[in-house]
């Protein structure tokens, strides 16, 4: 058992490393498509270049991969020469990086038109006040002036005296800003430490969004699971013990049609019936992060998931039940005159449920996939919706982080499935 667990954990770690490399290499923005997406099609090549620099897309893929996985705050700390900390802004709930100078003094920098650094000192309420400009230029071996610090957006930034311009996003569009840094490090702790950086689409923390939305998705998936499983096991067993009869054919065909009807079709039909015609339940649960979802928001998504999932689990349970009912010990039990009900409940059921348990565990993977579509239809603020929107935008770090979460869920449930199977099956447990 211990060896089995050890091997599983090693295998999971290798899988996760492979998945993260695969995701990163595949999603790597080879052309400027994502820059156009963020800036709009009217952006000039200079603006695109500036943005690529600000997002650190001009660094080698290996560096970006390591930054993404294990973070780059330590790299920034070495360049800046002092500790950096992530502090939450109480006004917005977003976090930003600050240089920690000790004594509760946290600063970022700005370079003014005279070429001097203006320290921005953080106040407890989250805002900053500007202090008198100071000269902090350092000189490298070739006599060029440079300065590593954090800019007002909390990014690691390298200034020199060349007077570069940065194109920054404001309410009114893209503006040029003189006295800008020439190189950037978008600081993050890395996915291993639970920080995947800032989303390009929403300009907010990816990890926070994924955390919130994963919670919503698990609620939906959990509800669907609780509704689907008892029903599916019941119908699967009924179909299995009536193999070949009308009842079996009926349950199987209805289940097959349910499984073959895409979520978006059944979802739309349910919306038409329950929301538009009879006005029983809301059809959209959009943008309810924070305000909380009411029970009525769950009804139609769960119903849609049930319609598509039910048939699949029925099929598995039925096949397993049919196999068991053909086993010699069942025939013996029937021949020796045991009541049929007792044969089914005491002998067949226990053995028949073994196979579905592992398959149901594997099926959670499929359930998460189906949820992407259901969330898109019902505008449900879950992980699937986030994955879909990030994919459409080309927000690769957000997509990769959210996809990693779904993969972790899949691998862990597979492990639990294997464990459950091992524990339930004496032949494996004692070998």
């Amino acid at each position, binding site marked *: 058992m211990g060896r089995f667990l050890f091997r599983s954990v090693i295998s999971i770690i290798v899988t996760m490393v492979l998945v993260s490399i695969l995701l990163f290499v595949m999603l790597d923005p080879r052309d400027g498509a994502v820059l156009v997406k963020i800036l709009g099609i009217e952006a000039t090549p200079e603006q695109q270049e500036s943005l690529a620099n600000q997002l650190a897309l001009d660094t080698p893929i290996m560096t970006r991969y390591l930054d993404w996985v294990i973070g780059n705050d330590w790299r920034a700390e070495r360049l800046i020469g002092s500790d950096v900390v992530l502090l939450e802004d109480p006004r917005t709930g977003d976090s930003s990086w600050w240089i920690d100078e000790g004594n509760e003094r946290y600063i970022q920098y700005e370079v003014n038109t005279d070429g001097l650094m203006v320290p921005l000192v953080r106040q407890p309420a989250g805002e900053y006040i500007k202090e008198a400009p100071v000269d902090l230029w350092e000189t490298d071996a070739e006599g060029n002036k440079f300065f590593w610090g954090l800019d007002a957006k909390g990014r690691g930034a390298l200034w020199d005296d060349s007077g570069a311009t940065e194109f920054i996003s404001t309410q009114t569009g893209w503006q040029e800003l003189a006295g800008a840094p020439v190189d950037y490090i978008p600081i993050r702790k890395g996915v291993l430490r639970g920080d995947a950086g800032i989303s390009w689409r929403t300009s907010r923390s990816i990890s926070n969004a994924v955390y919130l939305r994963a919670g919503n998705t698990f609620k939906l998936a959990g509800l669907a699971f609780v509704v689907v499983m008892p029903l599916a096991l019941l119908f699967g067993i009924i179909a299995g013990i009536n193999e070949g009869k009308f009842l079996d054919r009926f349950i199987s065909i209805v289940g097959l049609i349910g499984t073959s*009807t*895409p979520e978006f079709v059944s979802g739309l039909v349910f919306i038409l019936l329950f929301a538009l015609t009879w006005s029983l339940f809301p059809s959209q649960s959009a943008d309810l992060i924070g305000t909380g979802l009411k029970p009525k928001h769950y009804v139609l998504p769960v119903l849609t998931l049930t319609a598509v999932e039910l048939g699949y689990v029925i099929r598995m349970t039925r096949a397993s039940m049919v196999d068991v009912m053909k086993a010699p010990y069942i025939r013996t039990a029937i021949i020796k005159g045991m009541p049929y009900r007792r044969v089914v409940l005491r002998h067949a059921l226990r053995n028949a449920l073994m196979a579905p348990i592992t398959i149901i565990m594997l099926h959670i993977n499929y359930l998460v996939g189906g949820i*992407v*579509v259901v969330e898109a239809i019902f505008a449900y603020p879950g992980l699937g919706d986030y994955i879909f929107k990030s994919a459409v935008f080309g927000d690769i770090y957000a997509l990769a982080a959210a996809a990693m979460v779904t993969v972790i869920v899949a691998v862990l449930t597979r492990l639990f499935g294997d464990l459950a199977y091992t524990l339930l099956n004496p032949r494996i447990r004692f070998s």
Partner: protein
Amino acid sequence: MTTETRSKAPTVWSNIANYLKLVSESRIATIGLAMVLFWIIVGLTSFVWTPQDPNASLGIPNRGIQDGFMLGTDRIGRDNLSRTMAGTQVILMKTRIPELSVGAYLLGIAGISAIVLGLVALPWASDKRTRQKGFIGLIIAAVLIPIANIIANSTGLNDIIIPKFAIPVGVAIWGVAGSLTLGSTLGLIAGYRGGTWDQVIMQILDALIAFPRIVLYLVVITALGQGDLVMIFAIAVTGAPGVARLARSQALEIKSRDYIRAAETRGESIWYIMFREILPNAIGPLLVDAMLRVGYAVFTIGTLGFLGRGLPPPEPDWGNMINLARPSFGQAPLSVLVPAFAIVTLVVGLNLFADGLNEEITRYQK
């Protein structure tokens, strides 16, 4: 048994033909086949005749059943029936190759050759006698794409454009064929060779299988853009791990049989054993699985079309039709229900076909 019949060893194709003969014995499989054939005939018909031009706005938008538009019109007045008929084409009948430069073709051909060469060389590399040959093949496969890239960039090949055209057989079928080729080769090596080969191959495939299917599709499409060829690639990559698992379990079961021992003693090559001895005997379950996979592919293409990430226009695509009809579902339900009916019946047909065939094959083996 006479010597003549013994000398005729069953091949993959003769076994597939044998299994397909079983179809007529199963009522379920016959019904399924009829449903699939219905859509194949509809698709073929749509090339020469549809009631209206599927891409022209000829009627009043969002109307129900009316003269000349048997199943109503969509929101810009196109005929639902004609569009649903033509929607079969991109899934089952034809694959559209977009306008590409010669350089892009060179890269594509290099990529496909690299995969094929890799699949040929991998079994060789796993066999002691042919290890050198195998590794040389793998190295050549690895450098093919960079070489093609250099040639395409250094010459003027990127400027010569080949216009778009279509090749026969649809996206779903090419995709499943791809996952069968990839998956069964890898699965057979893993199962027959065992040991490190098994562990390495299955570990890599496990990483792919860990993705929820639709998420992997979205990742591939985000990375490579929308298009028929990308969809084929996505279907092949997503399906390969499942096929490999099945092929592996079959190979594990078959490899201890006497005729494999005999072939090994005769000194047959690993290729002969894998594809002439094991594969023909494992083809039944793989065939059934492939039918189900075509069904999944149709389902997923529909889902991606609904999400607006599926096959590109202008040819109608069922999922996309439903997506476009969604805002006016209340006024024109037929625009959603007709393509939905198409997806459901085609998927149900493929499922029934596979189920019936499976029942017959297992009965035949017992």
